[in-house]
């Protein structure tokens, strides 16, 4: 899931200030799940921006251009009337909405990470989309997302009692978790094995997959 959090209202008011007609678009997938851009949050935002909101729509997946076309088709008039779109979704959704609407986009949320949802309000980063998954050899623990230094050959000297010095020893050391998992699995040889420097070229430029 893409985890997002609302921008401070003050900042949203500042960004929407120059516009008279704002369309608010929420997300029916991730932002609905984490309660930052679902039906309820979209309506609450409309209340806060009273007087300048031309309408509200929750698109099933704003990051999917096809779904934007489908879900905003009935609201085309609102889109045309608006001079800006306040997007309560992740950055990918916001940019796809701009592609579809052609309007000025105001991001209402900050995109935080790809994470696990434990319960509403408890989210944990679990993937950095590094383009080279190592979970098989780290006991199912991602050191890129969960080690504060993203080390491939940890742990560093900053672990105590299995906790990481970053965050004042409140978070687990990813490499101690990996060690424990691999030990339980009888695969400690994978822990000791040296992982050479990564080829980071895949992440050194904007990524696209264009198959046809």
């Amino acid at each position, binding site marked *: 899931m893409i985890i997002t959090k609302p921008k401070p209202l003050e900042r949203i008011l500042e960004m929407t200030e120059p516009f008279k007609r704002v369309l608010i678009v929420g997300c029916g997938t991730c932002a609905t799940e984490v309660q930052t851009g679902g039906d309820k949050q979209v309506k609450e935002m409309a209340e806060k921006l009273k007087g300048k909101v031309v309408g509200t729509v929750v698109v099933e997946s704003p990051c999917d251009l096809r779904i934007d076309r489908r879900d905003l088709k009935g609201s085309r008039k609102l889109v045309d009337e608006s001079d800006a779109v306040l997007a309560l979704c992740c950055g990918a959704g916001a940019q796809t909405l701009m592609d579809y609407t052609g309007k000025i986009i105001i991001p209402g949320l900050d995109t935080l990470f790809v994470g696990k949802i434990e319960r509403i309000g408890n989210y944990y980063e679990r993937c950095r989309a590094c383009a080279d998954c190592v979970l098989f050899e780290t006991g199912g623990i991602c050191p890129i997302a969960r080690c*504060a*230094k*993203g*080390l*491939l*050959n*940890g*742990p*560093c*000297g*900053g*672990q*105590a*009692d*299995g*906790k990481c*010095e*970053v*965050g004042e*020893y409140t978070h687990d050391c990813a*490499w*101690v978790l990996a*060690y424990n998992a691999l030990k339980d699995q009888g695969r*400690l040889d994978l*822990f*000791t*094995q*040296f*992982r*050479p*420097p990564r080829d*980071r070229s895949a992440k050194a430029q904007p990524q696209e997959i264009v198959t046809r």
Partner: protein
Amino acid sequence: MMTREAYSELMKAINAGRFVFTGEIEPLKTTDLDDVIRVAEAHKGYVVACNVTDNPKACAYLSSLVASYVIQKEVGMEAVYQMTVRDRNRLALFSDLLGAAALGIKNVLALSGDHTTYSDNPGAMPVFDIDTAQFVFMVRKMVDEGVDLEGNKIGGDVKLHVGIAGNPNADPLEPELLKIERKIDLGADFMQTQVVFEMEPTKRFLKEMEKFPIPVIVGIFPCKSYGVAKFFDENIPGVSVPGQFLEKLKKIDNIEDKELKKRSIDEVNVDYFTDFIKEIKKTTHASGIHIMAVGYERLVKPLVEDFSKQSLP
């Protein structure tokens, strides 16, 4: 132990079986090199080399490479150039390693580096393009094969020894030992440990290290005041400062006469650490002691003068 050629006085002394002492110098946020030179001079004749820290606590200070060069050139004090993988990607690390070799630096110490969240510029991006194991791997390629990570040829020799850090206080210790083993297999030349105060965990760690072909230099931190010792005891996980040493420093803390206080603190430190060093030297296979007398360089002489007569080349 190591069969590789020794380029530095540090490695020559270790290979000759001498019990070595190394010191520590911390460049600060300044363009003034006088302090670095003064501290190096205070160590001269007592230690075989001085580590030069690389932006400790992720604070932006004067370049460790510059200070390493200056203490070698101006003072004749061999440097252990500390390099963290926190602030530079593989290109910049490689480039600085070439620079170090070109300037006659012979020892580098590979460190992850304190995380940028502790920085005096906490908004900085932590780099960690490569980790310390990969750093050792890169240095070996440079020294042994004369190439960079991609196999591109280097002009001239790279005569560097690469050291690693080890943490005797790590809990759990097993993953720490496996990590160390990984770096030793890659070809690390020497190890310096994190700060230790207590004998038993130090001995336990040194016993574990006996199975590895690497010289281990044990890190100690003389305490300039009761506050420093208390800080280590209360704030550094895994580190506990022995009660008697703490008590003695606490008593001195109340002395009003400044000169007497200073003298008393030095005495307590010399007493405690002399016994500590003697015990390490006598009962373990450690290759020496790394003294982190940061801001307390006046202690180096009284602490090691008797030992160093036998140890320096």
